[in-house]
Structure formats: C-alpha cells, structure tokens
C-alpha cells in the first residue's frame, strides 16, 4: 500500500492556522523557546563583539569589526532558522503528540508552511533584536551593507537553515530520538566550512572544496565583499540561491521518504521512542 506524494501537497488554511496557533502557544508557554530568540544570539554577539574590539585595536586589517559582527548576526539567523524547524517538528516527539498529530489530516505541505510562517516571524524578531543590540553596544549598523544585499543574504540563510532543520527532523523520524545528538551535530558541522569569520582563500585546499558547495559560504564571502567594496557580487549569490532551492526540494523529498519509511516500520506508534 502506498501513500502518494500528491496527497501531501494539498493544503487547507484552517489546518495551517491550527498549527501556527500551536507554535505560537509553544513560543510563549515554553521558556526554552523564548531563550532561543534572545539568550544565545546575545551571547554570540558579546563574544564576537569583544573579540573584534580586541583584534581591531591590535591589527591593521580594515573592517574587522564589521566582518566579525556581520558574521555573528547573520550566522545566528541561519542557526535560528535551522533549530526552529527541528524543534517545532520534534516538539511533538517530546510530548508524545506524534500519534495524534500524524493521525490527523495534516499534510506535509501544511506542516512546512506553518513552520515557515512561524520560523520567519521568529527570525525577523531575533534579527531585529540583534541588529539593534549590535548598534547600541558596538555602533555597528548592519543595514550599511545595503537593503538588497541584506535581503539576498538573509533569504539564502533562512532557506538553507530550513534545509538543515528538515534533514535533522527527517533523520529523527527515521531513526528515533536516540540519534538526536548526532542529528543536531549536522548543524554544527556546517559552521567551520561556511567561512563565517574568515575568507575562503585563507582555508586549506580540501576545506575550500567542501566550502564552495555550501550556500552559506557564498553568503559570508558576499558579506565581506559588500563591506570591503560596497558592492553586491550578484553571480555567486544567485548560484547560492539556486543551490539552496534545489536542496530545499531535495530535503522535503527526503522528509517524505523518511516519514513513509517510519510508517512502514511502525515507528510513529512506538511510544518508547519518546
């Protein structure tokens, strides 16, 4: 017996409303989810703020402050996007709600549209908060790099964040909560290869080979380019965007496959998973 992919692509606005309502409730009912938006980004901003204050006082490289703080703010956007997708899907595992959720008529499309809406709102909040803080604490105005550039960077980061979040959730559906730590570490693995705080050409050859395949690398390269020259390098960004959209489609297909596999193996009804 097969459940067709086509059915998963229908959607109803009331179901999306129901899911968004759930996520909003979780956001203000759970301290963890409030911490996510404020605490961790602030820590990272302080870390890189102090580092760049020290480095720019002792080094002759221009724009160190902008590189580091711009990197920190944009990275936390990516991080937010990725963990939000993962946690909102997994929330149901943690509260043993998977059974009732997946017995309901929600489709994968509704689930992801709802997560995209809430994820987008949380990213906007988190980004606005961090930009303001960076400006207050270090007089760093991220909007100096230009509206278009910023829009392009954040779009790629948001979408690629969702790709990673979807893969993490799919892995956990397929292999259970016991691989949780492994699944989350996928996100950490991306950072050193994304050239967040250092240029691509300063990396060893083998790292570069991996780095260029990641959309994030092109964003942070583009960021440094924009800060240094005041111009937006369009071609690499378009490549990154195209790549991200392909990866997004692939990750959604993988999620669908993982869910199907979980249903075949009877994993969604095994409560000891949770």
């Amino acid at each position, binding site marked *: *017996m097969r459940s067709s992919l086509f*059915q998963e692509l229908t959607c109803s606005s009331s179901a999306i409303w129901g899911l968004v309502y759930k996520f909003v*409730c979780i956001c203000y009912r759970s301290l963890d989810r409030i911490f996510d938006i404020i605490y961790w980004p602030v820590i990272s901003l302080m870390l890189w703020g102090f580092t760049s204050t020290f480095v720019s006082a002792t080094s002759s490289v221009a724009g160190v402050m902008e590189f580091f703080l711009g990197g920190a703010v944009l990275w936390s956007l990516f991080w937010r996007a990725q963990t939000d997708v993962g946690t909102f899907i997994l929330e149901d595992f943690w509260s043993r709600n998977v059974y009732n959720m997946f017995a309901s008529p929600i489709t994968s499309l509704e689930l992801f549209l709802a997560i995209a809406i809430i994820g987008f709102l949380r990213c906007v909040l988190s980004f606005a908060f961090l930009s303001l803080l960076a400006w207050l604490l270090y007089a760093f105005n991220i909007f100096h790099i230009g509206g278009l550039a910023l829009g392009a960077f954040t779009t790629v980061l948001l979408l690629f964040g969702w790709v990673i979040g979807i893969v993490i959730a799919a892995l956990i559906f397929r292999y259970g909560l016991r691989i949780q730590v492994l699944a989350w570490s996928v996100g950490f693995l991306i950072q050193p290869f994304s050239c967040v705080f250092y240029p691509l050409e300063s990396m060893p050859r083998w790292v570069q080979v991996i780095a260029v395949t990641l959309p994030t690398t092109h964003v942070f390269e583009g960021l440094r380019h924009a800060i240094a020259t005041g111009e937006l390098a369009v071609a690499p960004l378009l490549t990154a965007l195209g790549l991200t959209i392909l990866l997004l489609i692939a990750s959604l297909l993988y999620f669908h496959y993982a869910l199907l596999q979980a249903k*075949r193996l*009877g994993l969604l009804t095994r409560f000891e998973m949770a």
Partner: protein
Amino acid sequence: MSLLEIHDLRKRYGAVDALKGVSLAVERGEFFGLLGPNGAGKSTTINILLGLILADSGTIRIFGEDFATRQTAIRRRMNVAAAFTSLSGVLTVRENLKVYGGIYGVNNLNAKIDELLERFEITDLANRKLQYLSSGQHTRVTLCKGLINDPELLLLDECTLGLDPDIAEKTRRALQEFQREKLTTIIFTSHNMNEVEELCGRIAFLSKGEILRIDTAARIKGLIPQQILEVRFQPGEDLEAVRHLDGGFSPQHTGDSTFRFVLDEPETQLDAIMQRLVQTGARIADLQMTRPTLEDVFIKVARGEI
C-alpha cells in the same frame, strides 16, 4: 456499501506476524468491538486505518473511497482516541483542542470545545496545562480531541484504560450518548470483555492476527449453550439420593455439600431437575445458575474447541 471495508490486511514487523489477513466490514452507525488479548493485533489494525502504519498488503475502503489514495480527505471525517497517547504538554487543554479544531476545520470551535468539556465533566480543567493532568484527566482530554470534528468514523483504542471505575462508567455513558446523537460509527478495541459486551453491537474476535469470529455478543455466547447449575444443601443432609439422581444429569460433587449440574438444554432440563431434587428430601441452602461469559467463549474459540 459498508462504511468501512477491510480486505485481507497483512502486516509483519520483522519476525512478528501482526496481521495475517484480516477482513471485515462495518456498517454506518455501528458500535463495533474489536476484542482480543494483548498482542492480538487490535492496535495495529487501528493504526493502519489511521495511516500511521503502512500495511504490507490488503485494501481498505472508507466512506466508499480507496484509503491509500484518498487518505487526506478521508481522515478529515475520522478521528481517534487512544490510550498512552498525548497532546502538547506545554499547552492548556483548551489550546490543544483549538489546535486540533483548526486542523480538522471545525466551525464554531469555542462552543464545540465547551460542549465536549462538559460532556466529559472536565470544564474546570480548560485552562490547565496538559502536563500537569492526571492520567485519567488526560484520557478524557484525548477523548474530547477524538470527538472535536464530529467524526463519522471514530476509532477508540483502549480509550478507557487508566480511568477509575466510576469515571470509566461515566465515560462509556458519554460515548454512548454521543453515538446516539450523531450516529457515529465507532470501532472500539479493548481486552475487557464486559466493557465490549456492554457497548458493542457486533464484535470481532481477534487472536494472533486473525479474526476468529464476528457476531453479536448474544449470539457469540450462544456458541456455548450449556449452563451450569450449582446447588448447595443444608449441612448434615443425607446426600446419597442426590448423588444417584436419575434422569441422566450426572451430578458432580464439588464441595462439602455442593453439587454441580451441566445443563445442555437448560430450558427443558431445569424444571425436571428441580422436581427430582425436591423429591430427594434434602433441604437446599443455595442455588446458582451460571451462564457462559464472552470470556468462556473466547477461550474456547481461541483453543479451537468451537
């Protein structure tokens, strides 16, 4: 056309053969019982009907449509309440029900939620977080979720588990009322014979992944026609005459002054045996007729004795 038609459903988990070709049809408005010991395959059947588990083979038609290809539309008109499952712990009862109301596209949601909370007598829990509820309270919230969309087909998997006897009784009443009002078709699984007998019209006996029999409780009990008469006499009575009672009743002496008679045709035999017992002159202290229970039948059916 039946509301639900299952044909030759099979499911294997590794080495475990959970369903070995289950077929059944349930009509609109039936309160249908799925009865069987633990591990019989009741939950597996229910979970396949919910799309939570994919069967290896077999076909399912619900509301006249093919379940495999029309699942999403069909599932909007169904719902489930199952033991051991939960809703979101950090959300309140009302918030949880609003979420599911949205997912199932319920109109006049707030009024519907109030009505359900009242039905199950948990109105006072509306604003409590789910994670702080007792398991019995939890179970009733899950039932409210199961009824939120006035489902045409409602699956109840051991849904009274963990309720204390008083609440379990009230819950059964509430379910029966709901079913009568809305003419919901209900499939009710349980390993509790009394509960199934009380609620369900027809019952499917499931054992080791196979349906042994489908019928009403009364007719299933009719599979064992025998009734047992137990007679206790006053202490000190002379029971020799009872021991050698004629008429082919073959009395079994089971205790000090107690005898047991197996009546194959109770309607015709009871009168005759009572007259003979009176003629013996032994004074009777107590009488008891035991009718077969579903459980007796179930054991015999499972052992292949019927």
